[in-house]
């Protein structure tokens, strides 16, 4: 009943408002009975009540309204002219409607009172011409009915019905805008006053100043809240959409919602309503498969569409995720060629992400069959246009067979966000705190050693991890920094971290995000602008846009996943060497006793195995690359850069016994977590890791050794 409650409440509030207007209109009508416009307006109101009450199943209310509506229809069409009887009959209809609404508000049901007399009277008015006897009879019934209706019930409704209507009020959004701007002005004036107060010594003034400060802050907060609405206001209508649509096309779809309370500016709520509905319909129609196909694919017959909303970096992110069939990039490419949007070569080169975004192109539809729901190729481009208009972005990602996720990011036009204010090159910038991880300050004299260089890219070692650095003044082509120290703002964008070097860190505070001019919207490095306490404007940095511009984020997602080592995870030293096919392999250093280079001519044969005399013992040799299954038939580099006469040998020991592993050229030793990022692709390998940006196979020493010396690890007799 939860959702319905909200709807009923809305219905009640709206109906009360309309009924109040009706009273006025009836009086107006009594003055001027022939005024068709007023009659039409009354008719519409009663008609709405009738329709909506029918929708909610309030039958009695519907009947009363219906009787009233019939009479009004005759009046509207000019069959009758309003007389006293009709007027009072209609007024009592309004009273009855009010009484029932009051009952609904109190008890959620419409109560016992069905008003048969009133309905009969209205019927009589419609059918019979107002015969002289008639007014008397209805008057009597009315009198009878009056006792419960007018004396008791309306008295209650006046009290209770008033309550809901009094709690909410419709206000012109422009009024709120003006209020908002005035409050902004007030805040600035307050700040100036506070500076003067600080300078003066009067204690009384200081107290008053403090109060002014408090009140202004509260006022600002409250006024901002007036424009905010939870996204639930839009989502509330979607379960019904999904239900009806899935029934219609024979699918089973469940709609889940996360982050219903995420608040959005009212104007944005309005703006995303249609695009959102369209995309959800699309997900049901195209995304989720029919139950048989889902079951065949090993998925539950019931599909799921997940709506998620959350605030991130001064933006509201809304995701529409389905677990349906996903998009087929091959088909999309073919379609793009077929539609003449691009040539086959262009299509083949297009990155997958962009291929998915093709569906936002005008006239592009992938539905094999055009249904009356979607597939006509209008829609997704309209969705994009609508979202663009409010300064948002739409992105689509999909995994074939797993589902599709549409991510809408829209700015919080009027939202307040906590931000960090920094300076760079003489300008001030605000950074949304959601992106902020920590602040690092390096004194100038230490800067030369603390900031290192990786092929032209400055990095800082933050607790052992390399943090790429972006100099804000360079990135934005601002003036030179005059800072005495290096301030690094460690930021997170899209799962990547980077350090933003600024001149100074000023303050944190709540800022009002205001969108930039439409024409400046393509500056992805800014999320908007805000007015600072002193009345000047400061730009808000878009951390993701900035990172993308500096190439710190964006492409790196996969590499990041591979390279990420969760903090606190045990690390192990690894010996890296080259494998024959120019790849890299590693052995945990703990399993290495010594590294040797041995003369190939010293290798002797002992039975089936090769041995070498080493420190007075016979060392069996394991030629690692011969033991491992080949990946290529013809290794590109069989000797792996090793001169054939000298063999790099890793001496491995266990319980005082030793074995020599003949490996490729030794590269380095590194510290790395041994958490495998990919399972082994062949025998003798534990798994794969990315080390220094290269895929490295970790050798399973035990199993390799066993292939040559099967009882090497057995306890010695």
């Amino acid at each position, binding site marked *: 009943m939860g959702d319905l409650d909200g709807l009923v409440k809305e219905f009640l509030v709206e109906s009360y408002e309309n009924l109040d207007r009706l009273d006025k209109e009836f009086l107006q009508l009594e003055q001027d009975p022939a005024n068709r416009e007023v009659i039409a307006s009354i008719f519409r109101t009663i008609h709405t009540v009738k329709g909506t009450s029918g929708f909610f199943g309030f039958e009695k209310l519907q009947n009363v309204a219906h009787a009233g509506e019939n009479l009004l229809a005759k009046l509207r069409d000019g069959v009758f002219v309003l007389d006293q009887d009709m007027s009072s009959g209609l007024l009592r209809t309004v009273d009855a409607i009010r009484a029932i609404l009051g009952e609904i508000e109190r008890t959620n049901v419409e109560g016992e009172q069905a008003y048969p007399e009133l309905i009969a009277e209205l019927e009589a008015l419609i059918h019979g011409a107002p015969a002289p006897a008639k007014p008397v009879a209805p008057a009597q019934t009315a009198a009878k009915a009056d006792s419960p209706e007018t004396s008791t019930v309306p008295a209650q409704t006046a009290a209770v019905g008033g309550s809901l209507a009094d709690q909410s009020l419709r206000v012109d959004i422009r009024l709120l805008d003006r209020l*908002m*701007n*005035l409050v*902004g*002005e007030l805040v600035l004036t307050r700040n100036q006053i506070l500076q003067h107060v600080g300078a003066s010594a009067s204690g009384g003034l200081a107290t008053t100043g403090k109060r002014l400060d408090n009140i202004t802050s509260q006022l600002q907060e409250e006024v901002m809240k007036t424009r905010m609405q939870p996204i639930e206001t839009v989502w509330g209508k979607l379960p019904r959409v999904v239900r009806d649509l899935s029934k219609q096309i024979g699918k089973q779809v469940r709609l889940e919602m996360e982050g219903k309370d995420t608040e959005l500016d009212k104007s944005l709520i309005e703006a995303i309503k249609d695009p959102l509905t369209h995309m959800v319909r699309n997900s049901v129609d195209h995304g989720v498969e029919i139950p048989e196909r889902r079951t065949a694919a090993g998925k539950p017959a019931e599909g799921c569409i997940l709506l998620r909303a959350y605030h991130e970096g001064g933006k509201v992110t809304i995701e529409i995720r389905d677990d349906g069939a996903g998009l087929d990039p091959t088909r999309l490419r073919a379609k793009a060629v077929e539609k003449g949007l691009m040539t086959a070569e262009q299509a083949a080169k297009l990155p997958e992400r962009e291929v998915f975004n093709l569906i936002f192109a005008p006239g592009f539809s992938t539905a094999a069959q055009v249904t009356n729901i979607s597939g006509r190729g209008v829609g997704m481009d309209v969705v994009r246009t609508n979202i663009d208009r409010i300064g948002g972005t739409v992105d689509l990602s999909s995994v074939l067979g797993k589902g599709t996720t549409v991510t809408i990011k829209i700015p919080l036009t009027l939202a307040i966000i906590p931000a960090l204010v920094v300076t760079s090159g003489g*300008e*001030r910038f605000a950074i949304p705190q959601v992106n902020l991880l920590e602040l690092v300050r390096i004194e100038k004299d230490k800067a030369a050693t603390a900031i290192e260089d990786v092929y032209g890219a400055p990095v800082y070692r933050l607790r052992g991890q390399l943090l790429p650095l972006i100099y804000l003044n360079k990135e*934005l*082509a*601002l003036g030179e920094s005059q800072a005495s120290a290096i301030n690094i703002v460690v930021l997170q964008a899209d799962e990547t971290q980077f350090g933003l070097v600024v001149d100074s860190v000023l303050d944190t505070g709540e800022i009002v995000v*205001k969108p*930039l*001019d*439409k*024409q*400046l919207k393509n*500056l992805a*490095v*800014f999320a908007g*602008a805000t*007015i600072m306490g002193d*009345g*000047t*404007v*400061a*730009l808000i940095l878009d951390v993701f846009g900035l990172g993308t511009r500096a190439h710190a984020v964006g492409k790196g997602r996969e590499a990041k996943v591979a390279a990420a080592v969760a903090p606190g995870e045990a690390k192990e030293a690894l010996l890296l060497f080259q494998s024959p096919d120019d790849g890299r392999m590693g052995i945990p250093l703990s399993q290495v006793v010594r590294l040797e280079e041995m003369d190939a001519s010293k290798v002797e044969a002992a039975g089936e195995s090769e041995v070498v005399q080493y420190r007075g013992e016979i060392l069996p040799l394991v030629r690692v690359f011969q033991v491992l299954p080949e990946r290529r038939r013809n290794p590109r580099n069989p000797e792996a850069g090793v001169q054939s006469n000298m063999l790099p040998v890793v001496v491995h020991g266990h319980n005082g016994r030793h074995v020599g592993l003949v490996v490729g050229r030794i590269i380095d030793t590194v510290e790395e977590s041994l958490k495998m990022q990919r399972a082994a692709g062949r025998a003798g390998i534990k798994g794969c890791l990315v080390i220094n940006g290269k895929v490295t196979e970790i050798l399973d020493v035990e199993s390799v050794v066993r292939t040559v010396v099967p009882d090497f690890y057995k306890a010695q007799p």
Partner: protein
Amino acid sequence: MIDIVAQQRQYCTFRLAQYHCGIDVMAVREILRHQPMTRVPLAPPAVKGLINLRGQIITALDLRLRLGFPPREDGKQPVNIVVGLQDDGEECVAALLVDEIGDVIDIDPTTCETPPDTIRGAVRELILSVSKREKGLLLILDTAKAMRID
């Protein structure tokens, strides 16, 4: 263009380098002295910065640069003409920076001519018409186009 020539209108005039220009007074909201503004890095050069106009953040465009004139000499402060236009139901507001503000004058449409075809460059599309006044020519600018950055 035809309706501009057809009916008498009032224009807000201003000086820009050596030229006398005018824009439709209906679009003008207010005239402001030079305001402190916040530079927008990476924006096109014509974007001089952002101004706080009683809580509303508006973009300030230097008409000199917009029309391809050399930048203002140092020490000379421009004047802001705040203009507003309805675009797609939305109100677009911007501040245009000009050298000096003039009077609001009536222009007799019969004195107007379409700009000569020999004007070259970006200015061409910005000039709606040229009014031949006794004191000299007045270039009537297209406000909507002047507000656009490109």
